[in-house]
Structures are given as C-alpha cells and as structure tokens.
C-alpha cells in the first residue's frame, strides 16, 4: 500500500484469528476469537484514529488554526498520537499526564516535541482531566480537544473501526473493547448495532490499585461525556493480575505481543466466550488489541512471576 504521508496510513488494521485461545475454533458451534491489531497504526495504538479525527474536526470548524497549541489530558496513547499529528501539521502540544504512567510514554512524547505537565499519581486520569480543565481556563488560546467529550472521537470508530470489523467478519456476534474515554465502544458499538441487531457490545475496564481511586469523595468521580450505557450489553472490571495473565497468554499461545490493557480486553472476551461455549452455541467474538507491549517493558509486566509483575503494576496506569 502507498500513502501520501504518515497521517494517511492509519486504520485498515488486520483482524487475526486466535485458533489456540478460542474455546472451539472448528467443528460444530464454533466459538472463535478474533483480534483487531490496532498497534499497526502509525504511532502504535488505536488512539491514532481518534486523535486524527479530533484534529480534523477542529480544523474544519475553525477552532484550530496554524500555530495553535493543543491541550489534552491523557494517560499516554492519545498524547503520543496527537504529538505525531501536531508535529506534521505544525501545532504545539501540551499533555497533562498522571505521573504514574510508564517512562516510555514520556520519552515518546518528548521525542515528538510535546510538553508534559504532570498531574499527581493519586487521582489518576481524573486528576489529569481536572488539571487540564484548569489550564484551559488559564490559557484560553490553547485548544483542548478533550477526548472524553469530543464526538469526533466516537465518530472515528463509527466510520472506521466498525465498518472494518463488519467487512472482515460479517458473522460477528460480539465486540469487546476497553473502556477509557469510551470512544471506541460508543462509535464501533453504535455502528455494529445498526448493522447486526443482536450484537453484544462488551466493555473491559481496568481495575487499578487503591492509589488511583484516591478521590476525596464520591462526587469527584468521573463519567466521560461520550458514555451512553445503552450502547453496551455488559461491562467487566479486570484486575491487573488477570490483565497481565491474559497479556502473557496472548504471546505464549498466539504470538501476539500486546499491551496490558489488551490482556484485560481478552479476559472479558474469554469470559463471554466460555459462557457461549458452555451453552453449546456458536460465536464470532472480535476484540481490540489497543497497542503493543513495547511501551510497558519498563513496568516489569513481561518479566518475573505473574504475582510479582502484578504487584509492580499496582498504582500504575496501564490503560
């Protein structure tokens, strides 16, 4: 394939079968798992789709003009995607990122020329969102794209991820993805629901260590503006241990070197797959591999015992 530039080379990611991890790959009533490899995007994560769509939408409505500075709260991948797009299109970028994110993410952002403002580890992404909102008031000329509430985020998946999945897997019965900004699930979920009426849309969200939930009270909680729970049919909370266990199984059995959040997504996909298999029904379950494992090597996720790795990951943001 030939493209005009890197930003034109996103999407159209491969969908690969998991014959070894699927409960029943062949025979009567197959229950098959399919991984959509979003690490094959230009900066290595699914966030390239949303970042590019949000920039294009802001350019189209005149909010973003040459020389502007973009501001965004991010735990990493969206920042890296935005940093690449900003570099190619001539914008500055300020990322507000919780300090408990991997060193690789910081190094990548700095390499792309982004400025990082750290928010306290306690409070996780909630705190990054709050800090970014304060900065947006302080610096009104900065343009906050705000992935948690920007319709272009979900629209990128409605127009890209969803149609690609249906094209490659017309027999799809379940779609499983991570729940962060909720953009992937809302956009892809809405598209698939329109085309495949009985489709099940399943969310996997990370369950972090205590530190990340360090809110002062319940009312400081956060639900992204994009989130509409009527799009989903189930939602799983996945511990670091289970996410890591599945991340390692992906390498061990299928040769896929994925990031930790993809392990959490696989964990939810397998919970559903086992139910379908036990009920002697068939299913084609597509799930998202959101990024590769490269950015998490320093967290210790891929070395030592599972228990040790899970303990090291406690208190880190891995999705």
């Amino acid at each position, binding site marked *: 394939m030939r493209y005009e530039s890197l930003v034109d080379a996103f999407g159209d990611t491969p969908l690969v079968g998991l014959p070894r991890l699927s409960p029943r790959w062949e025979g009567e009533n197959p229950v098959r798992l399919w991984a959509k490899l979003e690490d094959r995007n230009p900066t290595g994560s699914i966030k390239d789709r949303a970042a590019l769509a949000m920039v294009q939408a802001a350019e189209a409505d005149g909010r973003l003009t040459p020389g502007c500075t973009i501001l965004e*709260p*991010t*735990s990493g991948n*969206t920042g890296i995607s935005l940093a690449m797009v900003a570099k190619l299109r001539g914008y500055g970028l300020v990322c507000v990122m919780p300090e408990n994110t991997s060193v690789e993410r910081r190094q990548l952002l700095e390499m792309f020329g982004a400025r990082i403002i750290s928010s306290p580890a306690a409070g*996780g*992404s*909630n705190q*990054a*969102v709050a800090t970014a909102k304060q900065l947006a008031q302080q610096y009104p000329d900065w343009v906050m794209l705000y*992935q*948690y509430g920007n319709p272009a985020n979900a629209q990128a998946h409605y127009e890209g991820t969803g149609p690609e999945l249906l094209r490659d897997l017309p027999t799809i019965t379940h779609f499983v993805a*991570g*729940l*962060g*900004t909720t*953009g992937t699930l809302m956009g892809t979920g809405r598209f698939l629901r329109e085309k495949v009426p009985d489709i099940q849309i399943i*969310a996997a*969200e*990370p*369950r*972090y260590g*205590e530190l*990340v*939930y*360090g*809110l*002062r*009270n*319940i*009312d*400081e*909680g*956060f*639900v*992204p503006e994009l989130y509409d*729970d009527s799009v*989903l*049919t*189930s*939602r*799983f*909370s*996945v*511990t670091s241990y289970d996410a890591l266990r599945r991340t390692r199984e992906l390498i061990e059995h299928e040769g896929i070197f994925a990031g930790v959040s993809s392990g959490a997504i696989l964990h939810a996909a397998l*919970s559903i797959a086992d139910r379908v298999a036990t009920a002697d029904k068939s299913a084609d379950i597509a799930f998202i591999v959101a990024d590769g494992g490269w950015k998490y090597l320093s967290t210790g996720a891929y070395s030592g015992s599972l228990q040790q790795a899970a303990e090291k990951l406690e208190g880190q943001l891995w*999705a």
Partner: protein
Amino acid sequence: MAIEVKIPTILRTYTDGSKSVEAKGDTLSALIDDLDGSHPGLKGRLITDEGALHRFVNIYVNDEDVRFTGSLETQLKDGDTVTVLPAVAGG
C-alpha cells in the same frame, strides 16, 4: 449466605477502615439493606434518594457491572464477591 463486599478507600469511614466486609442478601438490593444495618449510612452513599445507583458509583458482582445484570435486582449466591468502586477516568 455470606457474601464478601469490597469497600473502596473513600467509603471505609463507614466500615471502621475495613477493606472488605460480609453481608447477606439474595439480591443486591437486599445485600445493601443488610450492609446498611451493620454500617449505617453506607446505603445513602451508594443509592440516590430516587432509589437508583449513584452516578459515580460502580458495583460489580464477580467483576461484572451490575448495571448490565439487573442493577439492584441482580441475583446473588453464596460465594459471590461484590466490589464497590468509584467511577474514574481512563484513556
């Protein structure tokens, strides 16, 4: 029928600092009533005056969000684990 309920840090003022407590009930609703008996005030933090789950509270039975399994009418059985967590941002 004893069910383990995991309590997040911000609600442990109601459980004398305990991370996890036991409660009884065939449904989540009954379980929360039982919890409120032994830890008065906790119910009010989880459920609104209108009787719905608080917007920023997520409750999971064996890791599955109860909003998709019948909400407060979600059935419980011996050995289930109920986890209460505040809603936080990802991404």
